[in-house]
């Protein structure tokens, strides 16, 4: 089966106008061979961004959409022009919003698999063309974004898991970008990057990038590679439980005369015992505990 990228290049070559439907994954709209809109199930929709960032109600968007769909396709004013005319947002904001939505959705759509692409000639998106992307440029940009993620943190394991910030970190000082801050504040240990993106009203790719940056700075919990991970199963509390601790004490073998040196029978001990690392916060905690115990007597 040809890839989405190949189909898109073919349609661009034909100067096609219509919608490329990729099953549940989403839709790509083309106008005269150029991409003018895209929607992915994995990324927040334009409506979500408008609602979360600009407080534009779903009702206002729906009204503009219905008004636009009542008229002849391609006639003026388009749905997008209606939104601007109502003073809900500026032309620059609308264009930039479409720009981020399309780049974001395209990144996920071009990697989507397991669908049967269908092209509906002549179908247009209600917003009307706000920004034109040529297909090769879009494909190149998606490839660049993929490389950027890869470079930040080469593992995709955190992309679909809930974002869990570490309660305590090894570093003494951390510098965050504003988006990383939003991700940390928004993370509730259950939301995945895609859910966070919808909640924050930020493009899914940007949140994914921020999550990988946080992971590479060692600020997020990274799942231990284990059987649950290999199967691709979501983490369960059982999977998180420590394995039965090995016997920490050295064993004397029957008939032996020498006592094994301390530690030899417990090479695995270090894996489950907390590591002694002279962390001043640990020492401070111990001192405070001792003081509290002394105060009780």
């Amino acid at each position, binding site marked *: 089966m040809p890839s989405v990228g190949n189909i898109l290049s073919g349609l661009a070559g034909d100067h096609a106008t219509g919608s490329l439907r990729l099953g549940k994954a989403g839709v790509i709209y083309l106008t005269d061979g150029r991409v003018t809109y895209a929607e992915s199930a994995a990324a927040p929709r334009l409506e979500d961004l408008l609602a979360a960032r600009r407080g534009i109600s779903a009702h206002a968007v729906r009204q503009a959409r219905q008004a636009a769909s009542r008229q002849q396709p391609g006639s003026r004013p388009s749905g997008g022009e209606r939104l601007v005319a109502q003073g809900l947002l500026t032309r*620059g904001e609308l264009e930039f919003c479409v720009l981020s939505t399309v780049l974001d959705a395209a990144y996920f759509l071009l990697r989507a698999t397991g669908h049967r692409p269908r092209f509906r000639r002549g179908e247009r998106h209600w917003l009307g063309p706000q920004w034109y992307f040529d297909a090769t440029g879009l494909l190149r940009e998606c490839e660049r974004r993929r490389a950027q993620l890869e470079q930040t943190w080469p593992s995709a394991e955190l992309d679909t898991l809930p974002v869990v910030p570490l309660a305590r970190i090894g570093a003494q000082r951390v510098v965050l970008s504003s988006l990383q801050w939003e991700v940390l504040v928004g993370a509730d240990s259950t939301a995945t990057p895609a859910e966070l993106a919808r909640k924050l009203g930020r493009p899914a790719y940007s949140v994914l990038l921020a999550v990988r940056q946080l992971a590479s700075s060692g600020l997020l919990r990274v799942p231990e590679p284990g059987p649950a991970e290999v199967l691709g199963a979501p983490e369960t509390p059982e999977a998180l439980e420590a394995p039965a601790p090995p016997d920490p004490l050295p064993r004397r073998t029957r008939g032996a005369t020498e006592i094994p040196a301390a530690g030899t029978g417990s090479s695995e001990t270090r894996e489950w015992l907390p590591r002694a690392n002279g962390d001043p916060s640990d020492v401070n905690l111990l001192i405070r505990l001792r003081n509290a115990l002394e105060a009780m007597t």
Partner: protein
Amino acid sequence: MLGIEDCLTEVMAIPGALDAILIDQTSGTAVATGGVSRHADVERSAAGLSETLRATLDGLVLTSPGGTVRINDMIITTDGGHHLLRPLETPFDGPLVVYVRLDLERSNLALARHRLQALSGRLMST
């Protein structure tokens, strides 16, 4: 009320402006260009410039009292001219960065900064 292309036209109307790029800071993508010669590699230029801004923020944040920093604009002067970078806050994604290269002899830095500042208010309402 300005669109992205109008914004670029206005940037190019700044006295001494040679070329301009609008960059999406999060991904380092060139969103739109004005006056750039065909030989210039806009994609890599945009990626490099957004990286420059990011690196500068990282460098400044540790020297700033309070540990937070917000860049209003950044001026780089080379043998060939002035280079102005201005992040415009957008309500949707990371900032949109306006980059403009100005002729060393014919431009007025103060005027260019002023014009960019006025422009950002007209492109985005926030």
